[in-house]
């Protein structure tokens, strides 16, 4: 692991440049995610500022970008709609507290056990939901809306081939906003959906009654937010680890995410987490250190303070086009091949995760369902025991433990055995617990009754140990 000084100042030039690029790419997303959550754009912009700045100091993965995200915005929708802004800030605070507890309890280690199928389902359903959230902003509004969405998409996908230094979405936003203003076409703008205030965020205690009632309202949301935020953050940190060929501290990242959400809650922002897309942009643009994250947050705030009254003039269809690009980038397009090639159970887990998320609009529910389902599949898989016969040698294939004893015993109970002496071969098996030992003794007794001699062979050391231990116990009675 690098020293703190290296993490901050090991790559000053690259970090400053990439931080500027990320700030520009962050603004449209922060605004779009605020609109998804049903709040003023400022809530997402403030969150992106405070998240990025806090994570720059407290995070465990240098070079990773955290801000207001779609995954978190989606969880917040019902809370904002039913209870309002005060509860959003309170829930953000509580999310931070839960994440810090998770971090202290070293929960990041547990997230290592999240199956790939669930992770793939997570990003795919996230992409689908963000896309669905864009639909009301461009279907059936006006013909010009379709035209602008279309042109935006063409621009963001073709420009990067010719212009590499300036991010294509920024060029699309600037040129199309100018075109929209001067041609006088009638398009909805960001200003129609909310206001941009050119002021810095201020410290506020969330305006909610501090009692059990409030806690009961916000706790389920905060728990979902804490899970979603950590899942996306840890996935993102693995991607940044891989891209940079370095390692990171996952538990520190969990605590950092918590601290960042607490700060964000106090400064009037919505809960956030690490962003896959922005972090990839940061690394690709040369960002490696903590400085890049700090610059991204600070420059974003600076741009809003200076250019806030221009930002409200951005036409919604342009923002929608950029968000469609974000969805396409988020979706894992190798999933279709995965569905065909992966083991059936993995494909089912992936699809289940997606269906539940799209159904409930809550990524945490999909993750939990996916984990439970794959755990069940795992137990079914591990508890299958098959017995194969070669003359008088019977091979046990699979693990022998409490969940797998039935097929083992049943085989010897119901199959006709002609030999007078047989060998039960454990070279492909292992006995894990008392039930396994019990099942073996049961089979020996069963066969003895039928006049068949049994010899157990090829037991590994661990299995022999547990058998002798339990036999001693039973003989001492």
């Amino acid at each position, binding site marked *: 692991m690098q020293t703190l000084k290296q993490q901050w100042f090991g790559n000053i030039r690259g970090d400053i440049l990439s931080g500027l690029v990320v700030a520009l790419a962050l603004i449209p997303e922060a605004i779009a995610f605020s609109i998804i959550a049903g709040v003023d754009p400022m809530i997402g912009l403030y969150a992106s500022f405070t998240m990025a700045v806090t994570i720059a100091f407290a995070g465990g993965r240098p070079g990773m970008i955290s801000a207001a995200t779609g995954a978190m915005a989606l969880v917040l929708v019902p809370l904002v709609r039913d209870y309002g802004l005060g509860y959003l800030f309170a829930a953000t605070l509580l999310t931070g507290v839960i994440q810090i507890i998770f971090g202290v309890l070293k929960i990041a280690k547990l997230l290592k056990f999240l199956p790939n199928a669930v992770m793939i389902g997570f990003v795919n359903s996230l992409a689908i939901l963000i896309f669905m959230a864009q639909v009301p902003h461009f279907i059936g509004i006006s013909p010009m809306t379709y035209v602008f969405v279309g042109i935006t998409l063409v621009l963001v996908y073709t420009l990067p081939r010719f212009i590499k230094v300036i991010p294509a979405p920024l060029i699309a936003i600037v040129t199309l906003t100018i075109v929209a203003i001067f041609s006088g076409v009638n398009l909805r703008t960001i200003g129609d959906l909310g206001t941009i205030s050119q002021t810095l965020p201020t410290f506020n205690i969330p305006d909610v009654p501090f009692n059990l009632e409030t806690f009961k309202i916000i706790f389920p949301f905060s728990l979902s937010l804490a899970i979603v935020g950590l899942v996306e953050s840890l996935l993102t940190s693995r991607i940044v680890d891989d891209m940079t060929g370095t390692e990171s501290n996952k538990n520190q990242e969990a605590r950092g995410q918590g601290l960042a959400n607490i700060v964000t809650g106090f400064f009037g922002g919505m809960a956030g987490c690490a962003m896959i897309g922005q972090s990839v942009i940061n690394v690709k643009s040369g960002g490696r250190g903590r400085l890049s994250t700090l610059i991204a947050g600070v420059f974003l705030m600076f741009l809003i303070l200076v250019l806030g009254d221009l930002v409200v003039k951005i036409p919604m269809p342009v923002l929608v086009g950029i968000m469609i690009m974000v969805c396409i980038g988020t979706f*894992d397009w190798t999933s279709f091949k995965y569905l065909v090639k992966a083991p059936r159970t993995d494909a089912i887990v992936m699809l289940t995760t997606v269906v539940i998320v799209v159904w409930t609009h809550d990524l945490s529910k999909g993750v939990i369902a996916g984990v439970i389902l794959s755990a069940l599949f795992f137990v079914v898989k591990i508890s299958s025991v098959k017995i194969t016969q070669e003359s008088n040698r019977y091979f046990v294939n699979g693990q022998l433990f409490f969940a797998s004893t039935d097929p083992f015993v049943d085989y010897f109970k119901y199959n006709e055995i002609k030999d007078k002496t047989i060998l039960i071969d454990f070279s492909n098996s292992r006995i894990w617990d008392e039930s396994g030992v019990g099942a073996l003794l049961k089979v020996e007794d069963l066969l003895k009754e039928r006049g068949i001699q049994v010899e157990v062979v090829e037991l590994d050391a661990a299995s022999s140990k547990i058998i002798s231990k339990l036999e001693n116990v039973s003989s001492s009675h």
Partner: protein
Amino acid sequence: MYKHILLAADGSENAVRAAKEAIKMASCLEDSTVEIVYVVDFDKSKSEVLHSSSSEVINLERRKKITKVEQLFKESNVSYKVIFLHGSPGPEIVKYANEQKVDLVVIGSRGLNGLQEMVLGSVSHKVMKRVNCPALIVK
């Protein structure tokens, strides 16, 4: 002669043919070494992380892609080492070759995907244009 040779490998058949040529060149000189360089594409990182359970698995999968090439080197008596770089293939190879001041870059004429090549231009072409040492492009 060429003492320090860089061989770009990407898991394609072309890279295997390039490897054979690199071995020939290296065999001419007693103490020459070949660096087999595999560039992990930034754009593939996300999907590879999603589809593997740990970083060990990812590294194993990548290592597998160059086993054929590595096998050739094991069979010959040429000393070699394997280097994994991260970034976009063309520029990373150029940067590494120039930094390390290698004497020769050996690279297959085309990689895995014909369509990508049409859109993006070939990696070998980019490398040849911008590397400071001679480049051998193997058909």
